[in-house]
């Protein structure tokens, strides 16, 4: 599904990703962990095509297509979803309106007919309940006045509605209490159907107790320095990231 080869990318003058490789098959959940500044968020932005994140070299193939050649919205329409670490507010635009436009833009991209308001409303209500947000959140402005936890749940609601092929969760656990964390994890797990793939970017092992990954990668200084199964996350939990430095020196 996703094949990243020797990816180098920079922000302004600083190279952040320095030869990253990753192979993701349909249905797999890959956790990406690493210390602050390792390039975790950069990976999500580069894959989704954000301006200012410049690819220096390397290739990224998404379902056989050259991802790096596509516009931001084309990547989204092709099925790539990014759950933001800090979701931004759009005052005056209701969540409902925003998500309906979004769902229909995706459908249009896939050559499908747009959903009617009634069809959409039914789906939106179901998704809203799934992430345990009151229904009036559909009427409120996008992220307008939401708490940190509500914003994160709102992102998962969008994930549920948009049914992407690959979802990148950028620190969807940061700033959440245990209850909210469980809601987010439950929402994500409900979307694991054996075909949809996930990249779960996180600093802490905690989230992975609830979303069990197939693979765990440790990202440090712009590269994957170690890959393994879920046990690797536990190792990080007990020993932190300090050993990485030793590893580099060795």
């Amino acid at each position: 599904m996703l094949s990243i080869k020797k990816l180098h990318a920079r922000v302004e003058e600083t190279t952040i990703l320095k030869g990253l490789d990753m192979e993701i098959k349909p249905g797999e959940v890959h956790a990406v962990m690493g210390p602050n500044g390792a390039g975790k968020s950069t990976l999500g932005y580069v894959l989704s095509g954000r301006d200012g994140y410049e690819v220096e070299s390397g290739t990224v193939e998404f379902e056989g297509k050259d991802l790096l050649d596509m516009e931001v919205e084309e990547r989204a329409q092709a099925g790539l979803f990014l759950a933001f670490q800090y979701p931004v507010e759009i005052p005056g635009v209701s969540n409902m309106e925003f998500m309906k436009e979004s769902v229909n833009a995706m459908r249009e991209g896939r050559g499908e007919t747009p959903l009617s308001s009634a069809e959409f409303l039914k789906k939106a209500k179901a998704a809203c309940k799934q992430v345990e947000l009151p229904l009036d959140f559909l009427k409120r402005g996008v992220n307008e006045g939401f708490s940190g936890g509500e914003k994160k749940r709102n992102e998962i609601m969008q994930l549920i509605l948009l049914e992407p092929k690959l979802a990148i969760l950028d620190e969807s656990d940061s700033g959440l209490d245990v209850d909210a964390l469980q809601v987010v994890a439950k929402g994500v797990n409900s979307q694991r159907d054996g075909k949809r793939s996930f990249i779960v970017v996180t600093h802490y092992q905690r989230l992975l107790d609830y979303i069990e990954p197939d693979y765990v990668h440790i990202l440090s200084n712009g590269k994957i320095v170690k890959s393994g199964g879920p046990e690797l996350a536990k190792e990080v939990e007990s020993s932190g990231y300090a050993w990485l430095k030793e590893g580099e020196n060795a």
Partner: protein
Amino acid sequence: MSEQIDQALERKYDAGFVSEIESETFAPGLNEDVIRRLSAMKDEPEWMTEWRLQAYRKWLKMEEPEWAHVDYPKIDYQSISYYSAPKSMKDKPKSLDEVDPELLRTYEKLGIPLHEQEMLAGVAVDAVFDSVSVVTTFREKLEEAGVIFCPISEALHKYPDLVKKYLGTVVPKGDNYFAALNSAVFTDGSFVYIPKGVRCPMELSTYFRINEQNTGQFERTLIVAEEGSHVSYLEGCTAPQRDENQLHAAVVELVALDDAEIKYSTVQNWYPGDENGKGGIYNFVTKRGLCEKNAKISWTQVETGSAVTWKYPSCILKGDNSVGEFYSVALTRGKQQADTGTKMIHLGKNTKSTIISKGISAGRSNNAYRGLVRMGPGAEGARNFTECDSLLIGDQCGAHTFPYIESSNPTAIVEHEATTSKVSDDQLFLCRQRGLDPEKAVSMIVNGFCKEVFRELPMEFAVEAGKLLEISLEGSVG
């Protein structure tokens, strides 16, 4: 990201076509003879001719105002033609069947069919083409309710006493430079009269179209709402795409007697000029309403066109407990300049006013809000609330706010809130990541910003206004 905004704001002006219509047009120039001829063309009563001449003489002694935050070359008033009308209108067609089909096609192309059966149900239209009114629809239906809705030129003949009683009472003929010019040379416009206690059974609207080259459009609208009556009125404006600037200096007077309510909405889409500021309409307009006891006047405007806009729809809250409202969206892009806002003059006790102004600037445009709130000595317990928000798209445009607050009554309360924000890269990226193209994203963000004003528009037009904004923003992502 800002390049994309610029692209998305690239201009597209749908109403820029020219209609091939044979017109009778005065040679350019202005003097007392021109005014007499114009008045004679319309077969006006003598007092009207005299009124015009008085206005002209006042105008000659006045100076063009320079205080607005706009910059344009000096206008040569002798190079403008002050009257132009389609030749076919000379015989005064009695019904739609007699109207030149090319004229009807013009309005159809603009999305305003004038055949009653094809129109939006519940909206009566007065169509003004250059200097004359082409047709007014649904007149019989309105007459049944006692409502008068006709071209002002016709009202001068049919209802001279009403016109004479109210014309110039809210905007005196020497009020300001452009109002004085209008008083001297106004050609057509709408006259509305709602009798006592009547709720006008349908929306009234006037559609102004400038077609002829080198002509000015000077329309005059007068709306009188008798005691306890109610009316909602909307005006729309477009003009062909031309390289020369054209002058539009209108006057609108509203009179709301005791307990009456007037809702006046404008969707202004005059040709704004090209990307480099060539061509476009100079929109210098005086709009003012007078509120008697418990009366209410509400101005709602969506301003997306014109090269230069100078416009301050105002309310004189003379009667106790009267209410004035001003809801405005002004969008400028390219090299457009807008200096717009309102004046709320509180004279009566417990008068209330609300001002919600949303300015959106893109490209290299300049957008200024200028508003006066005056609490007179008698404005016991009066209240004003002003909210003034600016949204910037890109980094080469300007937003300016000039609030003036004068209070001569210690019990009056004035509140002013202002914000300035930008369409951020984060917002744009979020929208695009959710599959929306940059144009759709910007127009959605801008629509959200304007929501408070759009919901004040009559329903039929709220959708139109949203679409207009979308078209105007096309190409402005950058």
